[in-house]
């Protein structure tokens, strides 16, 4: 296991990238701590898979270096990096038995059969497939195949990191949960460095210690699930994480007040004058519908999703969402909204601005 360092890393699929827009992965510096579980979260085409393929060595970056425990491996082929990767579609060797599948990486490295057999048994126990070792891999279900590809990665003791490229895409919903739990347990028990690529926020937030959110080829925030929820550094993070996402409302900031169409909202911090596109971001969880307090809002629709209610409303021409408790009564005369000042973030040109105590 190793610490993985990305040093000034960037990648473009074009031979001569001219502007920043040509880069699928924009310049990035980051340390993946040894033994941590990371999720790489972002919508399709944001550069997640590019980054993953660079780490595993399937892709050579246009610029920058990758270091494993301080050793430069930028030019090293995949096989030398001792990386394990689980792909979106299960990759198993159809004609082999489960046992031979698991033994494959070890046999290719010329390990003796006694060691191979012992190691395969161990891994089979870890992934819960001991009783299937004699079966051909072909007839197995998608989740069993994914377990095999995971096992094939872990069978090597010298594996530096386990990479997952949206591994649960083809798995049935009820098995997804089980596999994710098993993954977490494996991480807990064996402490592999894991990097898990997904566009599903639930998967990312439940799996990882730290979530890396990517947007348009750039890492926009790295943080714990709480940090991503409470203080999204970029409007994309606020919008992408949460269900529904953060409300983003155009505003003018003056000191510790945000003016929206002449009315104002209190902020918990004071801000210097801001240039460019200025917005405030409030999560639906921190907005509250009321009869008398706050600013006017036009309620369009109330959706009861079971555990809570989502109120879709119009607020000075902007669509906003408000979450109310399951048992909260919503009456027709509730046409005002208040925001919890401590959870209102201010954004200039999509990036969060840190205020100073008011």
């Amino acid at each position, binding site marked *: 296991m190793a610490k993985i360092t990305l040093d000034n890393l960037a990648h473009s699929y074009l031979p001569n990238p001219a502007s920043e827009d040509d880069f699928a992965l924009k310049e990035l510096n980051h340390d993946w701590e040894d033994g941590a579980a990371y999720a790489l979260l972002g919508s399709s085409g944001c550069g997640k898979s590019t980054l993953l393929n660079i780490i*595993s060595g*399937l892709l050579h970056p246009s610029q920058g270096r990758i270091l494993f425990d301080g050793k430069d491996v930028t030019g090293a*082929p*995949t*096989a030398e990096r001792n*990386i*394990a*990767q689980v*792909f*979106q*579609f299960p*990759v198993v*060797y*159809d*004609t*082999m038995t489960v046992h031979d599948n698991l033994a*494959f*990486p070890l046999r*290719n*490295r010329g390990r003796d059969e006694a060691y191979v057999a012992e190691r395969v048994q161990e891994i089979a126990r870890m992934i819960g497939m001991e009783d299937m070792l004699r079966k*051909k891999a*072909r*007839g197995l279900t998608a989740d069993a195949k994914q377990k095999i*590809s995971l096992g*094939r*990665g872990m069978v090597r003791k010298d594996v530096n990191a386990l990479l997952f490229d949206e591994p649960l895409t083809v798995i049935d919903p009820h098995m997804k949960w089980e596999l994710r739990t098993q993954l977490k347990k494996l991480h807990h028990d064996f402490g592999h460095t894991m990097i898990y690529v997904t566009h599903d926020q639930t998967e990312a937030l439940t799996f990882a210690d730290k979530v890396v959110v990517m947007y348009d080829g750039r890492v926009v925030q790295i943080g714990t699930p709480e940090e991503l929820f409470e203080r999204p550094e970029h409007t994309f993070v606020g919008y992408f994480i949460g269900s529904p996402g953060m409300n983003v409302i155009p505003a003018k900031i003056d000191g510790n007040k945000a003016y929206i169409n002449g009315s104002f909202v209190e902020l918990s911090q004071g801000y210097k004058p801001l240039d460019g596109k200025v917005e405030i971001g409030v999560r639906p969880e921190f907005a509250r519908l009321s009869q008398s307090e706050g600013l006017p809002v036009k309620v369009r629709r109330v959706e009861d999703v079971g555990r809570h209610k989502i109120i879709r409303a119009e607020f000075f021409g902007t669509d906003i969402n408000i979450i109310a408790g399951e048992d909260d009564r919503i009456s027709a005369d509730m046409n005002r909204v208040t925001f919890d000042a401590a959870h209102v973030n201010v954004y200039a040109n999509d990036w969060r601005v840190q205020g100073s105590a008011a």
Partner: protein
Amino acid sequence: MEKTVNQKAWFLVLPVLLLVAFSAVIPLMTVVNYSVQDTFGNNQFFWAGLEWFKEMLESERMWDALGRQLMFSGIILAIEIPLGIFVALNMPKGGFWASLCLVLMSLPLLIPWNVVGTIWQIFGRVDIGLLGYTLDALGVNYNYTQDTVAAWITIVVMDVWHWTSLVALLAYAGLKSIPDAYYQAAKIDQASRWKVFRFIELPKMMGVLMIAILLRFMDSFMIYTEPFVVTGGGPGNATTLLSIDLVKMALGQFDLGPAAAFSLMYFLVILLISWVFYTVMVNLDKREG
């Protein structure tokens, strides 16, 4: 789910049944008709029973032709299948060069059989053919009209030239369907080139290869035009394959009865071998699953 039973549905099969009857069953029955009769001319026919079948089964001529035929199919399969796979593996994976390869390789498939025969007939001639003349000038004793080995080499090489493309194209299609992730996983697992072929490419190509083998077997077993144009079945009877022999018998000697019996047995042999082959392959496939 409850299945609805409606016997009227059989009527839906009727058009196909009629079509097959007129295109295959009825013509076949006329052959069956000839195979059990004898004629002394004047359009007079006599019942001969299974006499012709017996005669044919005892005829050394037919067994020799069958032997040659099996050898021919065996040789061309043994060459074309591995060669086709090899070509497919070495083709560019995409872009302009891949398209160019595909077009060039399709060309032999588009040439009519007797044109292929004529091309090779001329190509191999010692007096005016590029190949024959060159070999002769180099001191190689090559003359397909007199030498059995030379005749065989010529018709085998001709068939390989004509049909390897088909195997290669099918194998290429099979290869193209393998997702990149398999190759990436193999890299991560440090699999050698041979293992990538043995455990990823070959299994994924198995389906199309089965079709390729079956097609090439049936086609080569029925081959007539090309060897007939090149060698006319000679020297002697050295390249007289089953269909060439059949035509000689039916149209050359006008032995309708024996020829009809011969045809039926010829047909049954192809059917039998194809069926055995298919069954074996399908069972292999199932057992592995």
